[in-house]
């Protein structure tokens, strides 16, 4: 059989079509230097964090012991308390997300270019959203605890604060991507600004926003499980307590409870999200 392509001539081909076959020398140098520096930084990070073979080996050994001690998972005498705490976690996620959505909506409207073409408000609001977003939910929980005291109420407010900023950004971006044609239509028939918003923009963004809120509810169920670590209610308090007292069977049980609830919420919320987006496609 005739050889269609002689592999030994690959070098010639590469030389003739160097633009296609190879990156420029400079580009390769940059990539190489970048990779090298990144790798150096990684090694530096590992050294700084005191990674050592003996520590890794003994740590993994201990993790293995913990894993063995986790079986069989069992709740101990506090099952009812755990259930109550789990309910608290769900309530924190639900109330926090809703509160954030309700509070964020008006600010998001004001931060949207197509509703308020006035850059100062937009700039100030967007930067405030970014500032609040830079602080983790757990830090907000700490701050709210010093305001309203320990307990799930602080947790609700922490989730609400963190999500207020996230929603503010997301909602205003959604509003800005709304199709301007319905708005122009309403304006051309003599509609007021309020009617433009109500009938031109709102029907377009509402299903999208509902989907975003549901998605955040899902992810907040996860973050609400840990908010108890600093004392802001929910199952996190019990989880961290049982980890610290090395009650591994209970830890395993609590983690399983969380996984089941998170999976259930994921399922329900993704069903709802498809229903919403299917019923009223944007």
């Amino acid at each position: 059989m005739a050889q269609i392509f002689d592999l030994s001539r690959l070098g010639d081909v590469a030389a003739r079509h160097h633009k296609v076959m190879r990156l420029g020398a400079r580009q390769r140098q940059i990539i190489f230097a970048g990779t090298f520096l990144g790798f150096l930084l990684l090694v530096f990070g590992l050294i700084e964090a005191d990674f050592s073979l003996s520590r890794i080996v003994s740590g993994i050994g201990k993790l293995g012991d913990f894993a063995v001690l986790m079986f069989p998972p069992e709740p101990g005498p506090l099952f009812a308390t755990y259930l109550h705490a789990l309910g608290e976690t769900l309530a924190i996620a639900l109330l926090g997300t809703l509160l954030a959505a309700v509070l964020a909506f008006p600010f998001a409207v004001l931060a949207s270019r197509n509703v308020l073409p006035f850059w100062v408000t937009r700039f100030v609001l967007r930067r405030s959203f970014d500032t609040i977003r830079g602080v983790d939910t757990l830090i907000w929980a700490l701050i709210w605890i010093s305001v309203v005291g320990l307990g799930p109420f602080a947790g609700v407010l922490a989730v609400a604060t963190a999500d207020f900023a996230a929603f503010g950004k997301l909602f205003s971006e959604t509003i800005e991507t709304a199709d301007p044609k319905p708005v122009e239509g309403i304006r051309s028939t003599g509609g007021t600004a309020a009617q433009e918003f109500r009938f031109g923009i709102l029907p377009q963004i509402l299903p999208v926003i509902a989907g975003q809120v549901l998605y955040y509810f899902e992810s907040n169920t996860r973050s609400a499980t840990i908010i108890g670590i600093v004392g802001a209610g929910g199952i996190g308090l019990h989880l961290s307590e049982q980890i610290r007292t090395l009650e591994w069977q209970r830890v395993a049980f609590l983690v399983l409870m969380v996984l089941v609830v998170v999976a259930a919420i994921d399922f329900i919320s993704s069903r709802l999200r498809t229903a919403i987006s299917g019923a009223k496609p944007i």
Partner: protein
Amino acid sequence: MTIAIQHLPDRQLAPLMRAYRQALFARRIRVLVGLLVLVLSVALGGWWVGFDIALLVSKISTFTNYFGRIFTLDDGQPVFSDPVEWYWGLIKWSKLLGETLLVAYTGTLLGAAIAFFTCFAAASNLAGPTIRWVARRFLEFCRTVPEIVFALIFVLAFGLGPMAGVLALAIHTLGALGKLYTEIVENIDMKPVEGIISTGGSRAETIFYGVLPQVWSGFLTYSLLRFEVNFRGASIMGFVGAGGIGQELLTAVRKFYYSDVSALLVMIIVTVFVLDIMTGLVLKRLNRVG
């Protein structure tokens, strides 16, 4: 002027109107039921956590005052009047901030590296059903357990310090990035892959020459965004003793060192801003190259 719209005769119109009203009614009922469920669950949730709107209203001034307090020095002056006094611990805090960044970086890179090797096993176009199932459940587990829970456990296993934080972030990153990487891999064009398989390429060669050129820029984008998220995650690792600036922040909040709280928060927020801008620039450049 006459209007050109012709009205249907009532006999034809009546059933249409009835159908329209029924459809509208059904939709309204659905929305109403949905709202009712929502209101009921909110009421239940509010009762469950002891949500007290009166308490919130009465304490809201405490919240705003809190921000007044943290921006005030111990001698009653606003912090901006004496930046040296405000940032008295700048050297210590900068080191901690550096440690936080390093924890985030190392954790992201380790997690991304493992996610890289896992995603090909979890992608439906490159792996069989059994191995795919195992890989997916593994990734799911890694991302569902919150990183701070991993950190709590790792602190006990590996001892206090940033190592536990790095590992906790790495595992969570592995789960989160693994899923995103898998989605990228599943959306590639399979023709180059088939071409390499048909010329007898091994699996490693298939992935290296067929898959990688299509996915690397997507991988890099998600990893950069994850680094930002992980910096925020690393900033709270100190709450459980897993390194970084969190320990200092926890102490400052708990012991009411007001001006320290604002100093640390400002450092964290500024870093998040800088990271945000830098990732934006890198991504822009990346998209231009790719």
